[in-house]
């Protein structure tokens, strides 16, 4: 079936088999291998991309379902060589260890901060509830998102801030 999909601002058209999953289309047809296949069952969120602004799991969406939509992947968040504040936050606050979940974490965090520029710690944890990380224990990921939020609000982000367990 013919599809037309905009990925990171670039229009793509092509013929895809109806059973082709969006994550395979992104990784194999478009060579955008930043989006990862983790559990392949819709749980882990490593394959998270934004479809028309909303985070979804691309391993559980058919490419044909995304026909006509605008997609953002982790390759599309930086501005040239300038990291996106969320990427910078993960870098500065050690928000990753093995890095496998990171592309999905970043996309969920970008979506969260674009809809809520100053989330509480609880809102951050809810915002990444669909992304599993087996290394960090999430604390540094939360700090990374807090860093990014501060940066996006034009504040000076604090490094090594202890996440408030009670908020």
């Amino acid at each position, binding site marked *: *079936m013919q599809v037309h999909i905009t990925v990171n601002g670039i229009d793509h058209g092509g013929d895809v*088999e*109806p*059973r*082709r*999953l969006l994550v395979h289309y992104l990784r194999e047809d478009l060579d955008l291998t930043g989006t990862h296949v983790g559990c*392949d*069952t*819709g749980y882990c*969120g490593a394959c*998270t991309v934004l479809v028309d602004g*909303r*985070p*979804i*799991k691309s391993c*559980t*969406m*058919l490419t*044909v*379902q995304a*026909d006509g939509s605008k997609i953002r992947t982790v390759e599309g968040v930086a501005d040239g060589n300038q990291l996106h504040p969320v990427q910078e936050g993960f870098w500065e606050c050690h928000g990753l260890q093995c890095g496998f979940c990171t592309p999905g974490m970043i996309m*969920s965090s970008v979506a969260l901060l674009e809809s809520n520029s100053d989330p509480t710690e609880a809102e951050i944890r*809810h*915002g990444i*509830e*669909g992304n599993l990380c087996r290394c960090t224990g999430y604390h540094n990921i939360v700090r990374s998102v807090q860093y990014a939020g501060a940066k996006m609000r034009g504040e000076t982000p604090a490094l090594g801030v202890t996440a408030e367990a009670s908020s």
Partner: protein
Amino acid sequence: MYPPKFDYLSPTTLDEALSALSGAENAKILSGGMSLIPLMKLRLVRPATVIDISRIPGLDSIEDRGSHIEIGAMVRTSDTAGNALVREHATALAEAAGSTADLQVRNQGTTCGSIAHADLAADQPAAVLALGATMVAESTRGTREIAAADFFVDTLTSALEPDEILTRIKIPKGGRSVYRKLGRRGGDSDYPIAAAAVWVDTTVGDISEARIALTGVSSKPYLALDAAASVVGTDGSAEAIAAAASHATDGVVVLEDLYGTVDYRKQLAETYVRRALEDLLA
């Protein structure tokens, strides 16, 4: 993991979708795909034809119809959760939708899809049971209304015929409702190990009418009739609530799985009926 091959149709009118469904052998309706696509990837379901209803205009709205609200077949779970009409008139459904699965799944999955799928531990079926909702099923043969109480037949089995599409849900206004659950990951995330949706009408002072539904507890979401009867005609005293909770699993076979034994789950069912009633009547 690829799903097996299938023919894909994306009709742009409901009539086209209904004709395709009635004429096809082994066809499945795709709305968001959060249940269907994993089942196809695991090869537990092998439809010859997949009919994607997401391109049909008009199915994705939540409407105020005066005496009731209507939720269309393509309303995403996250939109149900955040909608002002649902939050006001069907609070239990807003809460159930908001605690379904995780954010990405709520963004893609639909409320009607979850109800048509009829998972024994899904959140939203309990809410529509408690709210006394009506399911509207359409086929080329006509339109049929099915009471929520008659809709959930068994595990993954609804009252829908193979040629019918659940096109909308009608939820009557009035009364107050809540949804309380214990999720598999603690808090209210993921599938419930046990959950209760409770609706009461207290417009005349005492509780004149009540419905209590449970999910995750038995082979299908169900109405606990004896539990509801225990609070009707009372002012919602602690004794009445305790009596209602004690009937939470009357007449059903309580499930056992790695999340809980029969005794534990029975206790959870009672606890969440009690908490839901306490929160609702506080």
